[in-house]
């Protein structure tokens, strides 16, 4: 099924010759929150800018709500709201005029009631007539969100919404994002905070060097994360895994000097005691035992490293 945002084989080369995106394929489903994780310079912002029409497509195709973003740019863009990474606001204008401007720019007729509702949901209603320059950093960021929401978009892009934002504000932002999701808005956010992706996303995409390395359901990813490994170094090399131990999820190292046992920390019985007893019964002597836990961070770092080499 084609998603509300569909990116097909998207390539982007900057005039300097930098290949910022190298054939991205991405389907974003209506109503979901997708977090795009990646280190600095991975191509997150380029991807978002290209979908939003700020950056030109070198090759490939993007549709939003079934509309081609080049051929049907008016219809496609009218569905998109963008919150940029940097705080960019006309400093001397009032909050309400700034969002009125955005609404008009996207071709929507006046609707003061709706705009007030947006401001209210972002706790900005009392700052309606304040000049942007008088607001705090967190408020300015919310004004940016209000601008992006002013024309009732179906898809909202948040480019690093919590970069440089303190912990409390970050939690606020997550609440806001969840509220928007409940209203049916599809949300794509980029971040390099793994905990942020964990906290709010339905799906997680990892991007590095202009390529999407993985897009996976967060829960599936978390399940992988919930796994733990025990590495047992043996005194003597084993040729194979003894029959008695076949019921365990074991891997034998190539040199036969170590066994790796993978288990689920969340299950009621981890099977560790049984394994250790059975190892002894099989006459295998242990030199050392280590445990390792894979985290989203490990998965992420691993993927990024792999793709960089």
């Amino acid at each position, binding site marked *: 099924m084609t998603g509300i945002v569909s990116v097909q084989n998207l390539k982007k080369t900057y005039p300097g010759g930098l290949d910022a995106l190298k054939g991205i394929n991405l389907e974003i489903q209506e109503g979901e929150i997708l977090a795009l994780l990646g280190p600095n310079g991975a191509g997150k912002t380029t991807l978002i800018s290209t979908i939003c029409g700020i950056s030109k497509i070198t090759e490939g195709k993007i549709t939003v709500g079934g509309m081609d973003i080049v051929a049907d740019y008016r219809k496609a*863009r009218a569905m998109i709201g963008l919150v940029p990474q940097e705080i960019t606001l006309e400093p001397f204008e009032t909050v309400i005029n700034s969002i009125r401007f955005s609404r008009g720019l996207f071709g929507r007729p006046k609707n003061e009631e709706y705009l007030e509702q947006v401001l209210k949901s972002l706790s900005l209603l009392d700052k309606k007539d304040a000049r942007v320059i008088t607001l705090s950093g967190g408020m300015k960021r919310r004004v940016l969100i209000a601008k992006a929401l002013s024309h009732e978009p179906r898809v909202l892009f948040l480019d690093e919404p919590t970069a440089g934002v303190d912990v409390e504000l970050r939690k606020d932002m997550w609440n806001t994002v969840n509220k928007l999701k409940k209203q049916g808005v599809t949300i794509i956010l980029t971040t390099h905070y793994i905990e942020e992706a964990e906290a709010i996303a339905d799906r997680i995409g990892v991007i590095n060097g202009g390529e999407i390395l993985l897009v996976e359901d967060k829960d599936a990813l978390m399940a992988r994360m919930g796994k733990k490994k025990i590495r047992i170094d043996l005194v003597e090399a084993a040729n194979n895994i003894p029959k008695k131990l076949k019921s365990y999820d074991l891997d034998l190292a190539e040199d036969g000097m170590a066994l790796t046992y993978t288990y689920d920390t969340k299950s009621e019985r981890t099977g560790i005691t049984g394994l250790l007893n059975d190892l002894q019964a099989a006459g295998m002597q242990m030199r050392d035992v280590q445990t390792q836990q894979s985290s989203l961070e490990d998965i992420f770092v691993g993927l990024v490293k792999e793709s960089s080499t």
Partner: protein
Amino acid sequence: MNFQGVRAIYTFEMARFFRTLLQSFLSPVISTSLYFVVFGTALASRIETVDGIEYAAFIVPGLIMLTVMTQSIANASFGIYFPKFIGTVYELFSAPVNFLEIVVGYVGAAATKSLIIGLIILATAFLFVDLDIQHPVAMLCFLVLTCLSFSLLGFIIGIWAGNFEQLNLVPLLVVTPLVFLGGSFYSISMLPQIWQTVSLFNPVVYLISGFRWAFFGQADVSIGLSLGAIGLFTLGCMTFIWWIFKTGWRIRS
């Protein structure tokens, strides 16, 4: 056509103008009054008439043109440069508006501002001299066309400029000399023959001459030539802007 979009840009830009009302209106009015005092009063006692027109009255069209041209460029260039400078320009590029709508919004607002200023200066002029405008409709048309074409030029400068210095560079080094040497304060027939010929390469000469014709019924060059020149200039600016948006020059990577 996204009329809401055009209106949004226009309203937002006009709001900037009214926010800085004092600076927007007062400064051109004060500087023009100073010109009247210096040129109209001090020099008028020496020059008395040019082509049979009282000198103080003679400089009125040139003064209005001088202010309208510089204000159009200043307003339009700043209008598009400022969003580029503070980064809000992303919104324009991600919005369902095309280049024509963006230009109509920004240039329309800039031209409106300078038209208002031009009319205010005209009103101020009546305080200093007796004026009898012979072709009021033509005068207004010339004024509007000048506001539009120079706002278009300003828009181009605003797109081109990479910093505030460049923003002021073109007006300072190109436009101001052209306007001053374009016969704002004199008739080019007062110049030696060689400089008269050189002056004919200055596009501003045609604008000021045409504008002066609308006031007094006489001019340095024919009214048709003036109209042709301003038409050509407007067309040139529009073509250049069309090219800018087609290629994304200086605005889109």
